[in-house]
């Protein structure tokens, strides 16, 4: 009880700017992971894993399976400590973290996107071809509009997972909210105030991301319907 009575929340205010800056780094990593990894790399991987060329399809599928079946923490420390031993390339903690996250999210979303395109009924492709549509028109007018509707809800849903995953990258001394909180706590000896504030910030930001995703999904459904 004494510990709770002795709480001094002023530490949260005096370190508030640092914590918010940490949250910004977390959100920046989320953005990079989601846009570059999820949408960008994910689309490329989905296209490669549906390719008719084995030389594209097999490496893409192997990459997706391997990256989905290993922990992000191991990927991140591998990227930072083992990768330079292979290549001689040195990356900063933030770069290593961002690369690991992009590859990780890319593998996840690649699978989501591939499954979405696969879920478009075969008859749609066949009908398009039977009508003599060129491949470009077939994809842009027939297949993709249907695939996007299937893919967007799970893709947007994965944004919250990306956000949560960024906290793992703090092990590489990336100055995200998690690491800033750990450092402030170590400096002030006030773990209860600092970690509770950080958890509350994470929870609120996470709720906002979830709500934004749900709103976007609703808006899209209205737009397409």
């Amino acid at each position, binding site marked *: 009880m004494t510990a709770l009575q002795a709480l001094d929340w002023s530490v949260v205010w005096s370190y508030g700017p640092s914590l918010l800056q940490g949250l910004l780094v977390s959100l920046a990593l989320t953005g990079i992971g989601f846009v570059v990894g999820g949408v960008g790399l994910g689309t490329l991987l989905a296209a490669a894993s549906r390719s008719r060329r084995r030389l594209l399809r097999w490496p893409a599928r192997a990459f997706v399976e391997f990256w989905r*079946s290993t922990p992000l923490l*191991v990927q991140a420390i591998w990227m930072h400590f083992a990768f330079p*031993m292979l290549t001689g390339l040195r990356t900063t903690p933030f770069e290593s973290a961002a690369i690991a996250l992009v590859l990780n999210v890319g593998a996840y979303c690649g699978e989501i996107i591939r499954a979405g395109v696969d879920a478009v009924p075969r008859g749609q492709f066949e009908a398009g071809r039977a009508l003599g549509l060129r491949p470009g028109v077939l994809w842009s007018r027939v297949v993709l509009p249907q695939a996007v509707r299937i893919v967007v809800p799970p893709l947007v849903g994965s944004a919250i997972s990306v956000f949560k995953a960024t906290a793992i990258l703090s092990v590489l001394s990336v100055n995200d909210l998690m690491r800033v909180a750990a450092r402030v706590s170590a400096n002030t000896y006030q773990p*209860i105030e600092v970690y509770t504030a950080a958890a509350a910030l994470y929870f609120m930001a996470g709720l906002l991301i979830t709500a934004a995703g749900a709103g976007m999904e609703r808006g899209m459904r209205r737009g397409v319907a």
Partner: protein
Amino acid sequence: MGFQPRLIVQNWPALLAGLGETLAITLAALLIGVAVGAALCTARLSGLRGGRQAAGGVIAFFRTTPEMILLFWAYFCVPEITGANVPALAAGVVTLGLVTGAYLAEIFRAGIQALPRGQNEAARALGLPAFARWRCVLLPQALRGMAPPLMNYFTELVKNTTLLSAIGVSELSLRAYLLGGQTFRYLEFLTAIAVGYFVLIFPASLLSRRLEARQSHA
């Protein structure tokens, strides 16, 4: 330089002990998670409005907040608040157990709600008591539907056990990281455990997909 597999062979016992600890953490968190998940799911589906809302809030909190901050909170704040000594392993297992409970509660709920209403109504019409209705009619069907997401969550849980390394639990990833530091050969150890995690997780992920495919055809 190159890749020196000899290092992995030499440190095999330490890596194996780490793997054992990873599996033990997974199992313990799973047990806590099943109990917590069943309780949360019961509250979520109950007739009590307060219970439903409280369970919904708890589930949302544990699914939205990163595991890492929860872990640090359990390890650094709980001892301060209670005055009790909290070992890192206990803090880690309980935290993962609670997070698992929140995810399992949603899997359980989805599985139960996916059952056709007629099953429950028919069992009631036959006069089956509540226990028999759940034991013989509802749960066997619901469990079959839950198997793929449960397997899938198992893979997430194994991956999440690596977070315990951040509070100093000597599971597989921390041991490999420390061995890498001692020998200055991160490449061998980190690659070895990456393959190890893959061997552990990939079959579960395949099984989950196979079960799901079979169900959607049936």
